[in-house]
């Protein structure tokens, strides 16, 4: 059957939006704040540990990020991080732990298609855009910085 006229489509879409439940935005914000806050506090504890262990602040930052990534990868492997993500939403997606989860989870999921075509090709299905546009943006920023010199 041909697509309905634009007016019919619009009125149905409006009705659908009106009848659908609203996302619990306040609840999601509070959950994201708490989850993100906990992850960052854990990160701070780890950072302090590395500094106390005698690392320079610069090295300790790198080590702390690395520790968080390993922790997140482990939690993903044990099937816990998706539960944290379901509760915390953006609060667990935004920190570096979320980035690690977005790479480890497809690596786990697609391992059945093999090392190369499974893990190799599809490991960055979720995180790929972040890397592509992250690289592109840093290139542009450095370009502008050099030109302004």
């Amino acid at each position: 059957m041909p697509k309905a006229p634009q007016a019919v489509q619009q009125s149905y879409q409006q009705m659908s939006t009106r009848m659908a439940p609203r996302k619990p935005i306040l609840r999601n914000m509070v959950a994201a704040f708490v989850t993100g806050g906990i992850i960052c506090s854990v990160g701070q504890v780890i950072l302090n540990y590395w500094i106390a262990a005698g690392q320079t602040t610069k090295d300790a930052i790198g080590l702390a990020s690395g520790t968080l990534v390993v922790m997140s990868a482990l939690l993903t492997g044990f099937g816990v991080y998706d539960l944290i993500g379901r509760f915390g939403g953006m609060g667990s997606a935004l920190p570096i732990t979320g980035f690690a989860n977005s790479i480890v989870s497809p690596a786990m999921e697609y391992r059945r298609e093999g090392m190369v075509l499974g893990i190799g090709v599809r490991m960055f299905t979720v995180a790929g855009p972040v890397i592509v546009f992250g690289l592109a943006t840093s290139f542009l920023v450095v370009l502008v910085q050099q030109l302004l010199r």
Partner: protein
Amino acid sequence: MTLKRMGRQTLYLPTAPIIYQAAAVVGPVEGKGPLKDHYDEILPDALIGQKSWEKAESAIIKRAVQIVLQKAGLEQKDVSFLLAGDLLNQIAASNFAARDINIPYIGLYGACSTMAQAMAVAAVFVDGGYAQCALAAASSHFDSAERQYRYPLEFGCQRPPTTQRTVTGAGAVLLTGGSGDISAVRVTHVTFGMVMDLGMKDPNHMGAAMAPAAAHTISQHLSDTGQEPSDYDLIITGDLGVYGLELCKKLLLDSGLELADNLDDCGIRIYDRNAQDVHAGGSGCACSAVTFAGQLMHELTAGRLGRLLLVSTGALFSPTTQQQGESIPGIAHAVAIQGPAAGGGG
């Protein structure tokens, strides 16, 4: 030759093929749902010893086919056709299940409408005298669907309240030639739906994409057969979910059909939405397949349900076309079924 057609879209089956036996096999989450007592088998886990979700889904279909043949006391060689489908690319789960089954096979794709589609085609084959016995089956699997249509399973993200959970399981029904026996469960009419598209683009609200197709097929079926909504004890849609069913009700009301208590949805029945984290309800081919092969078939056989219209609903969603900006078309097929409680006539 007289055409066995009524109106624009409905086929009338004068011999009323019998739904002789049905089998429902479900995953562990469905096995904790409100319909748990109606399933033939509840699997302990979703992988059941297989190496992948896709292999597990194939194994579930095979299990459902095996159980339905066992219940009917038949062997594979007694069955003329197997009509089956699922949600995977190239309907892989059904194809690979059929590889191990010695029955001529017709693979079908109707997204989540596949169960009614398969039952309708099977019933037509039987009614036309092209099959003494035909099997209709459909399956879906939460994990295989998630990885194909959405995100890797362990990826942490939040779901909007309008999303639904893909049912893990398979339903199979065995249709045999009708003999005019009114103590049997029988198919009297089938209505093949048209693809409807009201421009919905949200893959997190499939119910809204399918509701127009469901409403259209229901009203077309009623007008083709000259019936009122109240002629059915139950009109049940496949997997519209809570919000999709509301939309369908509203669309039917706008076209002058008031359905009150006798309109329900398999996606709502299959899970306990308060206790299980399923948001708007169940979805997937198996949603209407196992609800019919389980609870509804039992109600029909026991005489608690007389006249049923099963309307499996499918969102013809493709991640590729969706990313290219296309909307999500919907389709719905209807199968009119009578149990012993309906008596003769109709």
